[in-house]
């Protein structure tokens, strides 16, 4: 029996627990513990689903769903699960660096290398990307008054490809090891000559699956925004979050391609003996650096632009005011999107281009700072003339304005080749990009969860625990990363598992304290979810508008019905729903209802995800039969689906009418709440607009709502 044919390169020593048995150490114990957690987590999930009898609803209502709202929620669930892993990895690395002075420490160099590689890969590809994608999925179709995205099934397939990539990274905890090449995986170190084991292959296929998913998402969202806007929703009436979604989608379409090309070329080097990026034989690793950052720089704007959209919605809503400089914000967003493709070379000023080339790219990088600075001041001016309420989301926003502008300053510093020569590859750089991504993207997503959660689930999140999480996250971030600027200037390199310089110790201790605070913030956020679910009765806001919202998503029930809008809205202005509330035209019954077509659930997407995961696993371990079989099955599913004709079901007009009229009746019957009562149990989701001066016009508005056309 030739076991190699069956199991490829997997041996019993490939399993993480073998290392513990053969070579016991604390580092191996931690690795085994992580592997055990992954296995036990999977087993616990299976038991829970079985005991609760949730298998059927999970499959029927969620995994096979093509509803953009459910797809969006699943994306965010994936992001949060992966975030839990990657943030623990970050804390482990901090603890190692603090304890490693002069040969101490508890992690092996190899284990540490895997940690920083998985941390970066997961945080970018399987936390930040799914988080923004999930949010855009949920909110954007509601904001443009659409019933779904243009290609609902493609949307589900994008999700399942991303899940497949994330699963592969999780499997690497148990079977084999991950890459040590960092999230950017520079060859030739990641080539077959210097990394002969399966680690880099895990990275290649996980990232490839994620990037293909993101490409499809970008296409899907761009088409949706171009084609699916409701009547009257011209481009310059779209909410800013939708604008940033559009720009991000365009970036995804163009930026993911070079990454996919680079990973496939690296795979050809490793599997088929090609020489794209090898040391000799005509290979050129600089080509990889260009391709990777041709993706990598737009990628950071892919991450930050949706967060900018979130900040725009949050600051306008919690200031009860129109956004300042809407047009200039739109143009600034577009400027950033275009310029993001013109600065990739600043990631390798140290590669030996001529000074002129470096200077041009440095200046281009600074130019991006202009629209970004304009946006920051636009948000500040939005607060001027408003009535600011310091909700959790708004606290995150204020923290963002102050810390992001400091990150911008270090970004401008890094744009200078002369400075970059000194701090490139040091903790200064690490501090800079965490300074942009944590207060900008991650906290932006946390604010978005606080903001849109009641829309998605029909009840608000517990405000006290939200604030507690903020007061851990914000100082935690400052402590964890601002010392790293100083460490970097003192010459502490990134990706280093031990130093022998005693001057670093106090700063590393501060950073460790910050990491602990960030973990505490995450614990409070988890507690917030649990407590909120338990108290969902008193936090309920089914009437859909708990924050005195401004765009269309707040005009429908929470959670929204499968068809989103009973009748497609007709828009005449920006902030359409807010204007309607002010005029007293909100919540009017439509003249009539029609049948609505909604896509049927289908097993296509989860099957493709499953086979894609098996295909990638087969490739990682050279299990050729599995790789070939899975690849054939993927396309078999696609072809089988192409013969399906009955892919939509009709919701009769009577059903839509009954549901919508019941909602409208409930809204009309509910007493509106002012912003003073926003965080009380009285807030069921019917807001009295702030601009009606605390209820002066509320009666008029209420009276208007009784009118049916």
């Amino acid at each position: 029996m030739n076991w190699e044919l069956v199991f490829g390169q997997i041996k019993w020593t490939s399993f993480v627990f073998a290392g513990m048995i053969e070579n016991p150490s604390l580092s191996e114990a931690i690795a085994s513990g992580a592997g055990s957690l992954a296995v036990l987590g999977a087993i616990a999930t299976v038991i829970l689903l079985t005991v609760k009898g949730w298998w059927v609803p999970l499959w029927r209502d969620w995994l096979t769903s093509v509803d953009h709202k459910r797809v969006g929620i699943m994306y965010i669930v994936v992001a949060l699960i992966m975030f839990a892993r990657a943030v623990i990895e970050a804390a482990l690395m901090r603890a190692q660096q603090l304890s490693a002075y002069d040969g101490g420490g508890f992690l092996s160099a190899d284990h540490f290398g895997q940690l920083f590689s998985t941390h970066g890969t997961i945080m970018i590809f399987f936390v930040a990307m799914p988080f923004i994608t999930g949010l855009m999925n949920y909110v954007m179709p509601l904001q443009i008054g659409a019933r779904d995205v243009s290609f609902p099934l493609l949307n589900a397939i994008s999700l399942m490809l991303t899940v497949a990539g994330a699963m592969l990274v999780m499997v690497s905890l148990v079977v084999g090891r991950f890459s040590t090449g960092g999230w950017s995986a520079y060859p030739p170190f990641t080539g077959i000559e210097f990394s002969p084991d399966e680690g880099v292959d895990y990275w290649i296929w996980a990232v490839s699956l994620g990037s293909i998913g993101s490409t499809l998402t970008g296409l899907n969202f761009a088409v949706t925004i171009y084609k699916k806007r409701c009547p009257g929703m011209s481009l310059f009436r779209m909410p800013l979050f939708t604008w940033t979604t559009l720009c991000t989608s365009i970036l995804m379409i163009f930026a993911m391609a070079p990454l996919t090309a680079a990973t496939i070329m690296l795979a050809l080097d490793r599997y088929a003996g090609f020489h794209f990026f090898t040391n000799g034989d005509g290979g050129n690793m600089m080509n990889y650096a260009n391709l990777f950052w041709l993706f990598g720089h737009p990628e950071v704007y892919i991450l930050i632009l949706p967060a900018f959209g979130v900040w725009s919605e949050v600051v306008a809503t919690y200031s009860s005011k129109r956004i300042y400089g809407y047009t200039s914000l739109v143009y600034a967003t577009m400027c950033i999107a275009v310029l993001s493709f013109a600065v990739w070379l600043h990631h390798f000023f140290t590669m030996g281009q001529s000074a002129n080339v470096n200077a041009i790219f440095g200046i281009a990088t600074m130019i991006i700072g202009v629209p970004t600075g304009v946006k920051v001041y636009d948000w500040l001016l939005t607060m001027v003339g408003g009535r600011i309420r310091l909700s959790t989301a708004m606290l995150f926003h204020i923290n963002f304005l102050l810390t992001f502008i400091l990150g911008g300053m270090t970004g401008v510093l890094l744009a200078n080749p002369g400075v970059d020569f000194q701090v490139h590859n040091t903790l200064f750089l690490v501090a800079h990009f965490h300074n942009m991504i944590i207060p900008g993207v991650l906290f932006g997503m946390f604010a978005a969860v606080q903001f849109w959660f009641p829309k998605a689930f029909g009840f608000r999140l517990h405000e006290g625990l939200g604030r507690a999480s903020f007061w851990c996250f914000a100082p935690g971030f400052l402590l964890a990363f601002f010392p790293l600027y100083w460490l970097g200037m003192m010459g502490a390199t990134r990706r280093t598992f031990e130093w022998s310089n005693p001057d670093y110790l106090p700063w590393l201790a501060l950073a460790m304290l910050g990491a602990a605070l960030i973990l505490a913030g995450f614990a409070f956020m988890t507690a917030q979810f649990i407590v909120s679910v338990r108290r969902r009765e008193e936090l309920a806001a089914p009437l859909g508008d708990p924050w005195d919202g401004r765009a269309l998503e707040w005009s429908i029930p929470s959670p929204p019905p499968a068809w989103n809008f009973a009748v497609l809205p007709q828009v005449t202005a920006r902030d359409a729903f807010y204007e309607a509330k002010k005029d007293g035209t909100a919540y009017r019954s439509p003249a009539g209802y029609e049948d609505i077509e909604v896509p049927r659930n289908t097993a296509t997407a989860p099957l493709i995800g499953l086979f894609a995961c098996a295909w990638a696993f087969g490739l990682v371990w050279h299990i050729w039969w599995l790789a070939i079989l899975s690849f054939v099955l993927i396309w078999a599913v696609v072809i089988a689906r192409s013969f399906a004709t009955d892919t939509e079901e009709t919701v009769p007009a009577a059903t839509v009418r009954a549901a919508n009229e019941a909602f409208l009746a409930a809204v009309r019957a509910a007493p509106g709440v002012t912003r003073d009562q926003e965080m009380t149990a009285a807030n069921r989701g019917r807001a009295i607009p702030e601009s009606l001066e605390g209820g002066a016009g509320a009666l008029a508005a209420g009276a208007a709502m009784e009118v049916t056309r």
Partner: protein
Amino acid sequence: MAGLPALAMPCAASAAGFLEPAGPIAAGQIAHFGTISALMLIVIVPMFIALPLVLWRYRRGGKGSYRPDWEFNWGLELLIWGVPVALVVALGTALWRQTIAGDPYRPLGPDPLVVEVVALDWKFLFLYPEQGVATLDLLALPEDRPVTLKLTSGTVMQSFIVPRLAGQIYAMAGMQTQLNLIADETGDFTGRNTQYNGLGFATQSFTTRVMTPDDFDAWAASAKTQAATLDARAYAALLPSSVVSEPVIYGSFTPGLFDQIIASFAPGMTGGHAAHAPQARNDAPQAAHAPQADTDAPAAAAPHQHHQTTPEAGQ
């Protein structure tokens, strides 16, 4: 391991980075850091002053008048676009000047000391063509004399830095990069690789020992007396990954070894003319930088590097 231990090493070479420059290049870099930071305060300080004021004045129940429909003002708009644009013009000018002046390829004077650097897995090899000696993990330099480092790699991509003297530059197999610097004080400075390259990465540092010119000459003369020689076989013995505990000094090395190392990865990159020279520029004669960024050079055959460099045009 061939060769003899070098002079006894002081344990704690200063690692304060470019905050304590020991040469004009690093000094220029930290000065530029200060300039840019000061200029950036123009956009940062207003935010830190205005945001608390706005939050206080326009809080719910505050004194600010409520204007829910106010959304634009031409004066403010010109301010928030104009100030950053003006700032970027100032910053960009400073950047351009500093980048040209601090170009690592620009020789810093006549008659530089040439040191050829080979990055290996987890150590650095230094060849002194003028002195005919070689060292492992010890970079000896004379004070106040321009130094031209020519770098390549015998393994993966690495990034070479001596923070107190100059910034970093990548070392890549089959290619040559350059770093020019001057040390203007004596002492031991730590240098290291900053590009992750495996298990020994954390310990891949070396001592840069700057001496007075007389001391340097004496050092070179004593190094010449070392019996160890760095020939092809000795070099091959260095290729496997290892961490070097003590620096090694070789009394002699095979001439042309550096070019041979590059040629072993990329035949034709050294010693002859590349198959496709880049189009002559108006400001010729000018040596191309080793990894050529010009689009007119074919990717697989970047033009080779001659053994002298003239300053970039326009400097």
